[in-house]
C-alpha cells in the first residue's frame, strides 16, 4: 500500500533536524505553527510561530551541548495527523535522557500546524530538563 505523502514530509523533516539544517526542517511548517511542550520543566509551554519554535530548538541544543538525538522507529500519517514513534537520547552535565516518545503532529494542506510531544516517562523528561 502506498505511503501517505505526509510520512515522507515528516521523515525529511527529522533527517534535516538531525543534521542541524533548521531551514530545511521547518520548510513545511505553517506560519502560525504551535509547538506544545508538556510536563513541568522550565521548557514546558506553548511556542508560537517559527521563530519561537526554532528558538526552543536552539535552547535544547545549547542545554544538551549538541548531545541530543532522535531515533525514528516509525512514522504514521494521514491528511490531518502524523505520529512519529521515536527514541530520544540526550546528555546534560551528568544527566542522561534515554526514553521512548511519541510526537503528534496536526497537518493541514501538507503543512505542519501543531505539535505535541508525549513521553513514556514525563517525570524523567522533566527531571532531565530542569
Amino acid at each position, binding site marked *: *500500500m*502506498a*505511503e501517505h505523502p505526509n510520512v515522507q514530509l515528516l521523515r525529511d523533516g527529522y533527517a534535516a533536524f538531525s543534521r542541524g539544517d533548521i531551514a530545511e526542517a521547518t520548510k513545511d511548517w505553517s506560519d502560525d505553527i504551535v509547538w506544545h511542550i*508538556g510536563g*513541568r520543566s522550565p521548557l514546558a509551554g506553548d511556542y508560537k510561530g517559527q521563530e519561537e519554535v526554532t528558538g526552543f530548538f536552539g535552547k535544547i541544543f545549547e542545554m544538551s551541548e549538541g548531545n541530543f538525538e532522535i531515533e525514528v522507529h*516509525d512514522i*504514521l*500519517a*494521514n491528511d*490531518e*495527523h*502524523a*505520529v512519529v*514513534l521515536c527514541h530520544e537520547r540526550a546528555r546534560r552535565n551528568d544527566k542522561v535522557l534515554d526514553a*521512548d*516518545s*511519541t510526537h*503528534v503532529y496536526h497537518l493541514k494542506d501538507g503543512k505542519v500546524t501543531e505539535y*505535541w510531544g*508525549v*513521553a*513514556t*516517562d*514525563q*517525570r524523567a523528561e522533566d527531571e532531565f530538563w530542569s
Partner: protein
Amino acid sequence: MEHENVERTRAAYAAFARGDMAVVTDLMSDDVVWHVTGNGPLAGDYKGQDEILGYFGKLFEATGGSLAIDVDDILANDRHATAIVHMSAMREGMILDENAVHVFELEDGKVKAFWSFDSDPEQLERFWQ
C-alpha cells in the same frame, strides 16, 4: 486509501466501548503484552489475554463503568497502529480528563504489544491512587 489496520483498530475501540471483549481479544496475539506506564497502582506489564482482561475489568470496576475513550484519529501501517485519544472517567469524586496516544505493535493484523503515552501522567497517578 485507509490501511486495513485502521479499520481493525477502530472496530476494537468500538467493541471495548460496548464491553464486547471477545471482539477485542480476537485482535490480540496469544503472547500479547500490555505495557501500562507511569507509577500508579495499575502500572506494569500484563502478559497474555487473561491478564489483560483482568486489567480491563479493574479499570471498569474502579471507575464504576464511567471510563470513556474518545478516539480522535487512528493511523496505521503493517507494523504499527496509533490512536490519538481523549480519556475521561470518574472515581470517588475525582475526574480524569486527559489526552493520550495509544501505540500498538502489530504482526499479521494481530496486536503483539501495547503502550500508552499519557500527556499528564501526574493527573493519572492522582486519579488511580
